[in-house]
């Protein structure tokens, strides 16, 4: 309706009308451009220089040498595979574990709120701290809980970080992010209409069929949001790799590779080149996936 009224106005009026909001937004816009784009431009500049912190006398313009290095050393593709693989597995496992706990917590029982708080805790612990906890208290061969149980069962201790680095990282990330998935799915479960569930039980649909044909379709949007947000957070996972596996066994993610180039290699130019390549890849992937895979935001508006 209001659109029709606006159409009646001349374009000059419209420009004037929009002038004030534009001026009001300007400071915030300039600030956010300065905050996000200036460092990015600096990174692009750094990526074109040969600059090793330990050899300041050799600092010079390098053209595209750093980009050639990025694509020729063959570290980039394994890092992308590691990042995508670890993220995908961790998102799926934490989603399944989260769904399990969400369904359990959706029932009324004594101490429900205490149980919910306890289950959320892993998500609230600092990532570095939880990596350390898992390294020493859980996975350690001498004092770790997991190996203690394994040995009590009569098997010999497992060197998790050495033998199963990939699985170790996934286990830790699942422990950390399952509560987050659970929170989103739980809100979905609680928004289910009781009448529909009652009707299903009157029709004797049974627990499994109710879950598969009523609850899961209802949860679809929530699952999509959980996957999207979980992927964004898990792509940046760095601490378990830095603290437990040190990039061995196919766990050298893009984030860890970049860290190594910058703070072990002290090579600002190469690190910046990796950074720029990562940003470009992220923009491409995000654009495609947001448009095609996740219609949830658009459909959410139309409802």
């Amino acid at each position: 309706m209001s659109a029709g009224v606006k159409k009646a106005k001349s374009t000059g009026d419209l420009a004037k009308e929009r002038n004030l909001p534009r001026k009001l937004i300007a400071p915030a816009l300039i600030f956010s451009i300065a905050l996000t784009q200036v460092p990015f431009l600096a990174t692009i500049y750094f990526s074109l220089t040969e600059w090793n912190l330990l050899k300041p006398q050799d600092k010079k313009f390098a053209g595209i040498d750093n980009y050639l290095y990025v694509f020729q050393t063959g570290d980039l593709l394994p890092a992308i595979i590691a990042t995508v693989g670890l993220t995908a597995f961790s998102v799926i496992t934490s989603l399944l574990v989260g769904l399990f706990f969400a369904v359990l917590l959706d029932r009324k029982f004594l101490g429900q709120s205490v149980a919910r708080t306890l289950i959320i805790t892993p998500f609230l612990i600092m990532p570095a701290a939880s990596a350390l906890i898992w390294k020493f208290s859980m996975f350690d061969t001498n004092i770790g809980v997991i190996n203690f149980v394994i040995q009590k069962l009569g098997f010999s201790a497992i060197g998790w970080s050495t033998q199963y680095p990939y699985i170790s990282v996934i286990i830790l990330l699942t422990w950390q992010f399952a509560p987050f998935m659970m929170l989103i799915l739980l809100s979905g479960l609680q928004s289910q209409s009781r009448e529909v569930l009652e009707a299903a039980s009157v029709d004797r649909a049974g627990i499994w069929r109710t879950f598969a044909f009523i609850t899961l379709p209802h949860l679809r949007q929530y699952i999509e949001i959980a996957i999207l947000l979980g992927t964004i957070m898990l792509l940046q996972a760095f601490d378990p790799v830095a603290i437990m596996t040190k990039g061995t066994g196919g766990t050298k993610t893009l984030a860890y590779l970049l860290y190594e180039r910058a703070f072990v290699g002290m090579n600002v130019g190469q690190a910046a080149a990796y950074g720029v390549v990562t940003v470009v890849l992220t923009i491409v992937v995000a654009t495609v996936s947001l448009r095609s895979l996740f219609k949830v935001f658009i459909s959410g508006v139309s409802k």
Partner: protein
Amino acid sequence: MNNKVKALIAVVVVAIAGVVVVQQRSGGDVTLTLATVNNGQMKDMESLKGEFEAANPGIKVNFQVMEEGDLRSAVTSDVANKAGQYDIVTIGAYEVPQWGANGWLTDLTPDLADKAYDVGDILPPVKDALSVNGKQYAVPFYGESSILMYNKEILDAKGVKLSNNPTWNEVAAAAKKVNSAKTAGICLRGKPGWGDLFAPLTTVVQTFGGTWYDMNWDAKVNSPEFTQAVTFYKDLLAAAGEKDPVSYSFNECLTALKTGKVAMWYDASVAASMLEADDSPVKGKMGYAHAPVVKTKEAGWLWSWNLAVPANTQNKEAAVKFIKWATSKDYHQLVGKKLGWSLVPPGARTSTYSIPEYKEAAAAYAPITLEVMSAVNPKQPGVNPQPWVGIQYVAIPEFQDVGNQVAQLVADAIAGRTTVKEALDKGQVIAQAAGDAHKK
């Protein structure tokens, strides 16, 4: 982000500089800023700085204590960019010759010539590692080598005896003999990193006759000797080592040895003082031997934490005065009397080992530390000559990167995901790229 941090640092530096300038003008005082690592001995130095300030009115010393990794990046960027934030820096034996050759550090040779300081008392291998072309760029605060430590109770129970100069074959045989489900035979660092896995592994490579680079800076990482040494290390870990080597470095092995989970350990000599500490369950049960060898006479490494004065400091005279005080014989007496004799910084001065009170307090490990530290040769630790000074590292800026990447490859080989040959063939390419930058 980068620029913001830089701006912030700039503001802080200007503020500090302003404070220093104001102080200097008001009372003619000098405030020295010292960057150091958060080890026990350094904190002892901080607690005793009042003695220095009392003896030298007009000089104040401000300590900035950091984690090793933070210290390395903070000091490196400050000194390399000539920012001049620090008057005194604590740096490792790896950095000193490189930074000295770059002209980043003050040449201390003339200042150390006086008789009271007695520069000849500094352990010769340590002094060698801190000098370039006869110029000494730093003074050692404390030093260490690597030794074999073993739990005598566990070895005796199996009837195993070790000599004072064991070979790696003897040690491997002993480790396999005492290895059991509850107690691993030997603990060796496996955590990927140039300062973790490759500190002990490089000494093993050298005593097997291998090296990182030959005299022409050609990489020798996939040479037969290097391969043989890494294979030996891997096989020993598999047969009698700790279960999760990627997680294990100095602190993890120390805990395992203290709690009786391993029988032997090859690592830094400074660990002995922790194994013999009053709260250690294995105090008095330990035996110590030289680093195991194959083709060389000695295989111990050499490390020291040192004090140096950046070349562009405004307070050179006062800074030199302080580092001479902190590394003097008098300072060792002061630590002994004020804090306890077992806390005297080890491995820097020969005379430390003739102080009667120290000999008594550190009877279990002082003799072997002195013996090993005087015997190692940082100029040529291996079988063949090498174009750098240093034992468990290559003194070029690229080495922390090269060592780190090759360590990850070797860790994959230790876990059995690749073969040693594949890992070292890849490592050879990485090492050669760094070596090419040093060819003349």
